[in-house]
């Protein structure tokens, strides 16, 4: 079936970007596995391209033919509504052929391995694989099994790079008088606080890499049980007091408390939802106390837990802008990674 040996040499976990023939204005990477190894120039190129893609979404005909003939597989091993629909719309807006795969009801439930699933799908002549998987590193593994382009749509608690990119684009669109460089994707001097279960959040991890690359200052805030042990090596400030995190902060990004994963109570990471909301939830009083503060959330929101319901609907919450930007950012990533040399 496949022409290359299954025992071919294993590439590095994070394939080194090729510096040969690299022109400014192009990505150095073949895949998007995470933002950890993307530099500021590459992130800015994606965001700049996303800005032009967003203009397409405002037109009467919201479609361009640039990915005509390219087949994209959405390989979702974990439940997802927002991200999957966002990727699917992005693919369709670029005129790609789209195939959806979800683990339930597939051969995965018959015990097929990830490698076999991926290689079988590629044998049907597909070009790009979007993968969401509960295991960190699954997208990296996939790059060693198949020849197509791999885009990470969330791997366990590791990375969720397109979510971070859409968050960065949303921040760049904020009109903050003290941050004139934002529109040019210069985040120097921008203070961002990430609140909640940072340790188990792929969204937080990708955002930390992206924000640091663009020059922002990042503060992590949550119960000590939810803060990553490696925080110091990430170059971020850590606090377990909400007011410390919000004072002088431009953007507060509240993470979703994953009730289905760690829950409240004796086995959970915090005593009760009410106590969490009292100590770490953002309420109207915080918006009053910090008049320049903007609120972001990757969704889905637990109203009354990480954000009070009035805060979710507040004009300084840009949660729906994030969703709109998700399609534009994914169009940009698909366009930039689907160049001729990557599809042979």
């Amino acid at each position, binding site marked *: 079936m496949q022409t290359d040996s299954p025992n071919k040499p294993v590439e590095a976990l994070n394939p080194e970007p090729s510096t040969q023939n690299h022109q400014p204005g192009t990505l150095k990477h073949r895949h998007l596995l995470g933002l950890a190894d993307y530099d500021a120039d590459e992130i800015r190129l994606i965001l700049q391209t996303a800005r032009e893609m967003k203009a397409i979404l405002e037109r009467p005909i919201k479609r361009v033919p640039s990915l005509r*003939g390219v087949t994209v597989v959405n390989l979702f091993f974990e439940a997802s509504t927002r991200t999957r629909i966002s990727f699917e719309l992005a693919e369709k807006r670029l005129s790609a052929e789209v195939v959806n795969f979800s683990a339930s009801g597939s051969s995965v439930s018959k015990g097929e391995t990830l490698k076999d699933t991926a290689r079988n799908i590629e044998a049907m002549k597909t070009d790009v694989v979007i993968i969401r998987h509960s295991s960190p590193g699954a997208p990296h593994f996939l790059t060693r099994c198949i020849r197509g382009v791999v885009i990470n749509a969330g791997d366990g608690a590791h990375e969720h790079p397109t979510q971070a990119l859409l968050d960065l684009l949303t921040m760049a669109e904020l009109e903050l008088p003290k941050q004139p460089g934002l529109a040019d994707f210069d985040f120097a001097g921008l203070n961002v606080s990430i609140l909640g279960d940072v340790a188990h959040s792929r969204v937080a991890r990708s955002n930390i890499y992206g924000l640091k690359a663009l020059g922002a200052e990042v503060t992590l805030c949550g119960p000590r049980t939810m803060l990553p042990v490696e925080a110091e090596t990430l170059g971020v400030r850590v606090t377990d007091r909400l007011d410390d995190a919000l004072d002088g902060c431009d953007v507060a990004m509240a993470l979703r408390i994953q009730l289905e994963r760690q829950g409240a109570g004796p086995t959970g990471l915090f005593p009760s939802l009410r106590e969490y909301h009292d100590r770490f939830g953002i309420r109207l009083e915080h918006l009053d106390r910090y008049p320049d503060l903007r609120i972001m959330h990757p969704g889905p929101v637990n109203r009354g837990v990480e954000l009070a319901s009035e805060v979710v609907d507040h004009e300084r919450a840009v949660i729906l802008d994030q969703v709109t930007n998700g399609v534009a950012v994914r169009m940009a990533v698909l366009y930039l990674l689907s160049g*001729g040399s990557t599809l042979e």
Partner: protein
Amino acid sequence: MPLPATDTVKAQLMGAADVDRTLNRLSRQIVEHLDDEAEPAERLALVGMQTRGVHLARRLRDKIEAIEGVRLPFGVLDATLYRDDFRQRLRQPAVQPTDIPFDVYDRRLVLVDDVIYTGRSTRAALDALMDLGRPASVRFLAFIDRGLRELPVCPDFIGRTVPTAPGEEVRVRLSEIDGEDAVYLVAGSGYGVQGTEGA
């Protein structure tokens, strides 16, 4: 900005005075061609193709304003996402802004590009324009026509016709981005990175 190091200049085709004279003629041709319009500024508009076509279109607008006292609407078009050489390119070309600040519906458009070669960029630009609405008509202005067409596309307004060979490139250089007004015939790198049609 100097010419790319891979370029070997074979001839200078135009200097600054030539570029300006040709633009003067083209602006008068556009005015002449469309003088039967009752309200030119209502129906006529210029669309410059990224990158150098934009600057040429802007200069034409200013010259037409000086002649006729009419300031035509002016838009910017990037046809990158409509190109047909997606699989041939080593890397994706950068997407630049498209900004058409008027409704193209029922407009008479003049599309402006610096060089016409194979005609593929023009085809892409026409598709991009049609996705923005339904113009009444589209006329095409090419500052340099270097021949060697691969598609049945013919400019309505031509600055200068220059017979060329496939290995050559025409570099239109404009003071806004290149620091000089000039047109060169070069033995090029073959990748068409400098505002020529490429491909």
